[in-house]
Structures are given as C-alpha cells and as structure tokens.
C-alpha cells in the first residue's frame, strides 16, 4: 500500500505540472490543447540538452527555453495572426511529435527509443522528520526534486493567480474580455504570457518523464497532456483542485501498474483502468456541479 501511494505521487507529478501550466491559459480564456505537444517538446529537448551539457539543471533550463520558443510560435499564430486556438494547438501537437522524431534521427540515427546512459539517474530526496510519519512519510518522502518543485510551483501559481494584479487581469481576460479592453488593457498580452507559462510548466513536466527514464521514447507523453486538460476541469480550475485531481489519476495509474503484477486479469483491462477512472471522475464531478447548482436555486 505504501509503495502504491509513493508511486501515485511520482506518477501524478507530470500531470500536475502540465495542468498547472494549462490552468493559466484556461483562465485567460483559451482552451490550450497544445499541452501534449509542449510536454513532448520539453521531454525531448531537456534530455538532449542534459546529454549535451552534462548537467541536468542546464538541460532542464534549455529544455524550458526550447519549449517556450515553440509556445511563442503557437501564441503568435493564435493571438497576433488570430487563428483558431484549437487548430493551432492541434498543429503544435503534430509538429512536436514529428519534430522530436526527426531530430532524434538526425542526432542519434535512431527513430525509436534512445537511451542515454551517461546522464545518470535523478536524485531522491528523503525529507527528515516527515519520512518517519507512517503512511504519509512513505507517500511524500524519497521522491525526485521535481516532485517537490511541482508543489512549490503550485503554491506560486496560486499566489500569482489570486494575489497579484497580473492574476486578477489574466482571469478577467477569461471571464469578460471586454472589461479589460474598456480599461485600455490588452487581453492578448495576458494570453501571450499564459501560453509562455504553460510552456514553462509543460517543459518541466516533460523533463520529469525522460529524465526519470534516462531515455527518450517517441511520443513518450502518450496522452498525458490530454489527461492534464481533464485534470484542469476535474480540479474545477482551482490550484488545490488540480492537486486532488492529479492525485486521483496518479493513483489510478499506479494501481493499474500494481494490478498487472498481482492479478490474473488480462493486461488490456488493467491498462484501461486510468481511462475508466477519467470517465467516472468526470461523471461524478458533473453530477456534483449539477447538484450544487440546484442547491443555489
């Protein structure tokens, strides 16, 4: 059980990061379906830069820069050239998928899995005191630094969104765009920054995947960007909600990994558990929202 909870937290981290980034674009009034592509770009570029620079920190930083460049392209086409955000998001996903494979072939002569032995594995941090607490200790101690970074970033986003003028205006852009325009502020400017923030968070989310594995697998994100979108809605577009929702998904995923070994059930069924969970969670949230709406009246 302890191991299950521990791996649930590890698995939820990329989801939480990507959803956090997506929260900014979502609140600014854009449905950002490019999370998947941005994450993939981050995953590929950060491990390649880690390999080239020999430092994980440099690798992740440069990976963030590369992902933000892709997001800039997305933002310019969407906001300045006024294309439909759904189409540009889709294009970003396709571009990231193709680009990473092409680059991987050019750089390493391999279109499949590229293993980087040299970069070593991520450090594990044991948290003193906390690690002694039963259950909780096992759950939250002994993870890679990315896990703790994601929590710090979550607190930071919550503060930015709800305590700063930037957050107030960003959310106003999503709620009633014309209000900002009438005050002489540009909704596009806030959306542009939101795209960059989502690229930042998605790049780290992607880095978690590849650096954990020490390898790049084509389309390693395998739908995690889409699940991050679900996490945003499931978490009711609130930072704490994201934490809860991504934990649910992390747990579902960890459970299916565990069940594959323990149960004598065809693996296909077990691998479907997280997706079944997604469906169930959406239904429950929707019923709950409906119920709340009725109470109000």
């Amino acid at each position, binding site marked *: 059980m302890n191991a299950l909870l521990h791996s649930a937290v590890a698995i939820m981290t990329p989801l939480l990061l990507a959803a956090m980034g997506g929260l900014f674009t979502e609140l600014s009034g854009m449905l950002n379906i490019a999370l998947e592509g941005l994450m993939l770009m981050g995953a590929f570029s950060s491990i390649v830069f880690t390999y080239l620079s020999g430092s994980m920190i440099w690798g992740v930083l440069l990976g963030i820069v590369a992902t933000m460049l892709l997001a800039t392209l997305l933002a310019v086409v969407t906001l300045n050239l006024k294309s439909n955000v759904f189409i540009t998001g889709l294009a970003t996903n396709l571009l990231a998928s193709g680009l990473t494979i092409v680059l991987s072939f050019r750089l390493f002569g391999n279109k499949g899995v590229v293993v980087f032995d040299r970069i070593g594995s991520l450090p594990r941090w044991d948290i003193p005191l906390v690690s002694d607490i039963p259950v909780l200790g096992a759950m939250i101690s002994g993870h890679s630094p990315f896990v703790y970074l994601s929590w710090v970033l979550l607190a930071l986003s919550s503060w930015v969104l709800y305590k700063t003028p930037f957050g107030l205006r960003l959310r106003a852009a999503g709620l*009633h765009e014309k209000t900002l*325009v*009438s*005050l002489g502020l540009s909704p596009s400017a806030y959306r542009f920054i939101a795209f960059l923030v989502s690229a930042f968070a998605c790049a780290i989310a992607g880095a978690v995947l590849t650096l954990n594995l020490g390898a790049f697998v084509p389309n390693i994100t395998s739908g995690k960007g889409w699940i991050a979108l679900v996490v945003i809605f499931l978490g009711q577009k609130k930072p704490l909600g994201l934490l809860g929702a991504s934990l649910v998904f992390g747990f579902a995923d960890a459970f299916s990994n565990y069940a594959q070994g323990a149960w004598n059930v065809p693996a296909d069924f077990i691998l479907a558990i997280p997706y079944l969970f997604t469906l169930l969670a959406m239904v429950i949230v929707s019923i709950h929202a409906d119920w709340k709406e009725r109470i109000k009246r």
Partner: protein
Amino acid sequence: MSDTAVTMHDIVKTYRETGRCANDHVDLTVGRGEILCLAGENGAGKTTLMKVLYGMEKPESGTITVMGKRVKIDSPLDANRLGIGMVHQHFMLVDEYTVAQNVILGREPMHNRFTIDADAAKRLVDEVIHAHGFSIDPSARVGSLTVGQKQQVEIVKMLYRDVDILILDEPTAVLTEQETASLFGTLRTLRDTGKSLILITHKLHEIKAISDRVAIMRQGRMVGHYETASVDERELAGLMMGKSFSPAIGKTPYGRKQETVLRFAQVSVVRRNQGRPMLKDVSFVARTGEILGFAGVGGNGLGELESVLAGTLPISGGTITHRGQDISKSDAHRLRERGLAYVPSDRLKVGSALEASVSENLIIAARKRFSRHGMMRGKHIMQHARTLIDTYSVQGTADMPIGTLSGGNIQKVILAREIAQYRDYIVFSEPTWGLDIASSKFVHTQMIALRDAGASVLLLSSNLDEILSLSDRVLIFSRGSIVAELEGERLHTVTKEEMGAYMLGMHVREAAHE
C-alpha cells in the same frame, strides 16, 4: 482656467467596414460642472463621438482639447489619465468578481511590489461609495447585484480613477423608473461637486429633466448646442429628426380595393424581469395595396413589433392572423414558408451573411428552388443572381462577399431577395437607415411599386419624413401601444410637431377613423 472642460473640433470618423461616415466634421464643447445631453436618433453618431473622446476609436482628423490643453487620446488609459471616464451601455464588469475587484481592476492598490492590498482595495472603494452616497457593498459579488447597482459599480469604477469628465452611454436604457430617478439624483450631486457629465440619450423627457445644455446630432453631423431651458420637447424632436426634406416621389392616389392580409388583435409582449410590457394590446389590420407606416421614438415598441412580425419574438397575449389563419405561434421559418418577406433594420447581422457571396445571399431563403437531388445548381444560381443584380443595379458582382459592398448596395441585395420572396405582405424596418439619398430614393420607389402592385407594405421607421411621405395610413407608437392612427385628410395636414407630440405620449389616442 477656462470654463470649458472638453472641446472637440472638426472630428471626422468613417467606419472602414461599411464606409459610413459616423462623424462628419463634428464640434462639441462641454462646460465644467455641467450636465450635457448628447442627443440624436439611432445612428446619429453619438456613441462614436464619445468613443473617440474615450480613446476607443481613432478619428481620421480633428482635435481634442481637455481643460485647455491640446491632447491626443489613443486608449482608454490615456482618457483616464486625462480625467475622462466612460460608462458603457453594456456593462464592462466581471460578474464573478467582487465590487471592489471590479473597481480596482487595472489600477490595483499594492501591498508590496507584487501583491494586491485587498484590504486597502476594499477601504478605498468603500470611501468612493460613501463619498457619493451609493449603496453597494464592496465585497458583494457583482453577479448578484441588480442592474441599477451594477451601473453604480461602473460609475464608482470611474470615480475611483479620479475622473472629472464622465460619459454615460444611454444610462437609463436598462433602468426602472425608480432607478432612473436615483441615478439622476447621483448625477446632479456629481455635477454640483464640479464634474462634467455627458449623457448620450434619445429620450426627450430625460433631456429636459436632467441636462443643463443639449448637443444634438443628426446623421453624423452636429446640429447645434442649445441651453436646455430655451428649447421645448417639440423643438428638440424637430431638431433630432430634421427639417422636412421632401423626397418627392410620384405616388398614385390611395386605391381602395383592399382586402385584409394581416390582423393583430390585442397583441402583447411581456418580458419576464421587466414590469412594463414591451408591446401592449396592439391591434391593427394591414391591407393589400397600401403602405402602412409605424412611427415611434426608439424604445417605444417598434423594435419588438419588428421581431414579432419576423417571427423571432414570441407574443405573450393576443392573436395574429394571416389571411384568416392563426399565425400567433408560427416561427420565422413557418412564416417564411407562408410568404413573409422582411427587410430587417439590422441589415448586417440579420439581413445578410456577410462572408457569403452576393449570389449565396440572394438564394438563402429559397435554397430548394436552386437545388436538385440535394446539389446546388451553380449555373442556375449565377443566372438568377446576375438578373437580380442587373434589375436592381447593384454595384458589385455575384461572387463578391456581400460584406465588401457598401451599405446601400447590401440593402439592394436584401431588397432583391425579399421582393423575390414576397407573396402578399412585406415588412420594411428602417429601410433607409444610414443610406445616402440616392439609395434611399431607390428603396422608396421600390416600396411604392410593390404597393401599386397590390402588396401590403408595412413600414417601420423612426424617420418621420419617410413615414409621412410614403404611408397611406400611419400608426403611432408610444410606450408599446398605438396612441394614434392617421389617414386620409388628417394624414395630409398633420405637422411633424404634432407627430412628435403623439410619439411622446402627450396626446391620448384620437379616434381618427372616419
């Protein structure tokens, strides 16, 4: 220091999309500590002029002087900095935010370099609210407020920005009478503290009730500035609607081979959260071979009547019959099948699909006639379009998107389509609004031709000249009811001043039937 707060000189603004000149060399002066009403009919260019002053529209030429200094206003931020604020007709508020959050948005009091000082925000907003005698709670969610309270939030938002000049765009359009009275109280208090207020309105009694001076615009031009005390409501109406220009249209005398086409019996429209009915007990008949005019000042029911006729607004009471059959519950599609032809007042949004081509717009109502086995018959359509373009001398080709045409040509295309669609009655709403004289005349000629061919023509218009020169019979609306019916000799002798009096509800219904 001078007594003038704002001077706008020689402002020219043309909308590129429609090519319409909304402000044609307009001058405006606003004194300090006065309430100025900017009055005029719909489309006279009032809102455009104020958007120029508030930095939301860029004029092609003209100068603006604020408090004696020549200024350039490129954005609402510039306007705020110069002490100019605007309350828009449609509220610019975030319903999910609190009053305080809405007010401080864009000019947040800071706790430190990064964080908003929420307590200071509440305190500052509360100070503004109390200083001006408003009654709203800064921590209330805006979505839970009444319309009148939301408007207070808008005003507080501007006062928080220390404006000296406050523009209000049709502030009473959405208010109840009590709310209007309380708003006017507030505005007077603001004036007495030295603020200059500009109210955009077309309601005559409000101009008299609240303003010190009135500036009147008509068709993009400034008619003039007047001391409110020196003009009465009839004169105002005359100035807003213009001196009689006679379009001089040859018209055969009123033939009397009429049969009833459309009958309204006690038709009412009540909107849920609005006490006063939009239309109240409206009864009339429309007959073949006549042009039936409907006159009224904006907001008095003509807009609702248009929607009811078009089948887009369900009625709450009464019955409508067409050739003896009840059509009270028919929607637009059903009415069209019965032969409703309708030239809407909003020709850009309702009357045409701007991105679609002229030929496509011409067949929208009659797709079936131009398709075979579910496929459009291209040649057939193009030929149809070309014929109509020739007949109505539209300046444009069949495959141009209709949005690239001028307003007058768009109207011609709509006219062509609707006349092709018409069977026995046709509704025109503000058919010449914003059109130049030549296009207007073309439209008028078409209407007369229809009537002579035996159509029942219903003309809804706020343009009195148009009503008087074309109609065989006129119904005058005020506050959602018919207050007078004019025909025959009475129609020939009525003056525009008398018409204005009816429209303002100053006379009760007169038995004008012979």
